[in-house]
């Protein structure tokens, strides 16, 4: 896939990532402005993560598939009871598991701001950057993400189930046209015991590209992430 894109020799669309970043910054600013500056109830969590990722691509030559492990970390800053700042970073190697695929490295970072209008619902907006790199080529993905998350408290507040839906209104991929449709969904659980926090979640991202040269390009990344860490502070 990456090789195919590079062969086409399309120049990277530098304007699109910059626009996405600007939009993300605006969205963060809006979300952050929903709550007054907080001097109290500051809390934070930090976790390490390990994920199993599966990347599928159909660029007109059959489905390429690569799987592998990612490692990284996440941190959340809780600004009061209603605002959160979330940062995610992970990287790893995906090994080709189909004949026409290449091994590749994946590195990603995501930043999002969340407001919690009611305890069971969180609204968030953010920005993600992802890079696939192989021996031959490097491809950069930038996306603006807006979504909602249902938070289902089980057994008091000790366990929380989550169902998340995200749309990506602006996605830019270096060497490719922007996807015509991009969204993500996920489900997961988080257990808390004192300051300890454990989590397991499944996420799926889907990207549908516009038809180019008679080819409907499709990409999909699914990931099972387990994370464990500490949650400190007043919440």
């Amino acid at each position, binding site marked *: 896939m990456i090789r195919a894109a590079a062969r086409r020799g399309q120049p990277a669309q530098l304007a699109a990532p910059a626009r996405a970043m600007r939009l993300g910054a605006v969205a963060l600013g809006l979300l952050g402005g929903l709550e007054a500056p907080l001097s109290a109830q500051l809390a934070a969590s930090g976790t390490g993560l390990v994920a199993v990722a599966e990347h599928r691509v159909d660029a007109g030559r059959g489905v390429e598939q690569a799987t592998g492990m990612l490692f990284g970390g996440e941190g959340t800053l809780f600004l009061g009871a209603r605002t959160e700042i979330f940062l995610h970073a992970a990287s790893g190697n995906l090994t080709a598991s189909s004949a026409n695929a290449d091994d590749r490295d994946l590195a990603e970072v995501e930043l999002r701001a969340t407001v919690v209008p009611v305890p069971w619902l969180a609204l968030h907006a953010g920005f993600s950057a992802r890079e696939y790199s192989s021996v031959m080529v490097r491809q950069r993905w930038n996306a603006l993400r807006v979504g909602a998350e249902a938070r289902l408290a*089980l057994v008091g507040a000790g366990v929380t189930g989550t*169902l998340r839906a995200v749309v990506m209104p602006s996605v830019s991929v270096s060497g490719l046209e922007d996807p015509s449709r991009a969204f993500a969904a996920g489900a997961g659980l988080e257990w808390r015991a004192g300051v300890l926090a454990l989590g397991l979640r*499944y996420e*799926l991202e889907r990207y549908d590209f516009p038809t180019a040269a008679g080819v409907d390009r499709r990409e*999909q990344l*699914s990931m099972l992430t387990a994370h464990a860490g500490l949650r400190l502070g007043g919440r």
Partner: protein
Amino acid sequence: MKRLATLALLLGALAPPLPAQTNTAEMLQRARRLYENLEVERALVVLRQVISPALPYLVSPEQRIEAYKYLGASLALQPGAEKRDSAVLYFRAALERDPFVDLDPQSFSPAQLSAFVEARDRTFAAAVRPVLADTLVPGSGQITFQTLTTHRARLSVELRSPTGLRRVLFDGDNDGLREVRWDGLLGDGSMAPAGRYELDVIGASKLLQITDTVTMYLDVTDLHPPLEDTLPTPGPGDLLPEQYPLSVATGNLLKGLGVAAGALLFQSVFTNSTLGAGSALLSGAVAGVGTITGVISFSISQRHRSIPANIGENARRREARETDNAGIRQRNADRLRITRLVIAQATGGAR
């Protein structure tokens, strides 16, 4: 003439009764003056007119008693047993109307006093003198009741509160006047609450087979700063639920299953058909864990329905209420300590 007589009768009937304070008082004053000038016969005439039913003037009870007293005193000065017996009878008439009637030894002769003592011995009555409104500090102040038995008797003075609590103020032998004091406390040492009290004066003669009882009603009101109400016992709406309802267990199961269903749904439905469904292993892991978590949550919620945080909070609220009530009780006690009792005779009082 007949017409004039009829007119005169009518006018006489329509005329208002002549005031007692003027003519009767003048007659008594004249009788006393005659008595003091030792014109006893003339004094007796006037006094007999005073007690006569034919007297055209009103005679107050006090004036009648005064007349009986001086009739007795005047007759006691005269020689002869019959006169003395009459004196005793008049003294008894006075005593029956007012047991507090007495002769001043400085003003009356031994013969008069002797006749009066005999009258007292032959007449038995227990009495309590009306009290004027008074204010006292319970426990340290006192109000005095003047009680009396006309001769030697067993006297009991009891106070009964509106709630039926009794306090015996005096119980013993008595002859004559006795002052009985009350400090505003009930028999159990508590302050007398406001209300209408009953003072029973019971005399049992030791000379005659007679028991006499007189009751005086007292209105007791307390003067103190207003008291605070204690906080009521918290009702169901004031406390947090201490147990999860049964629906919570079902809800937990459904939430766990919802997470599981979401993972499977996203993996199978949201994917592009060209790429095929995502890895069932990845979503299945979350689905399995979600299901297990839901079942465990269901089980835990059913077996452990208590909510420790709410139980603790309710206990804190109850403790805070108790603390507040203790403060209120203390402040009320402080206010009650400076309470003054106002004691006044109620209408329909003593004999």
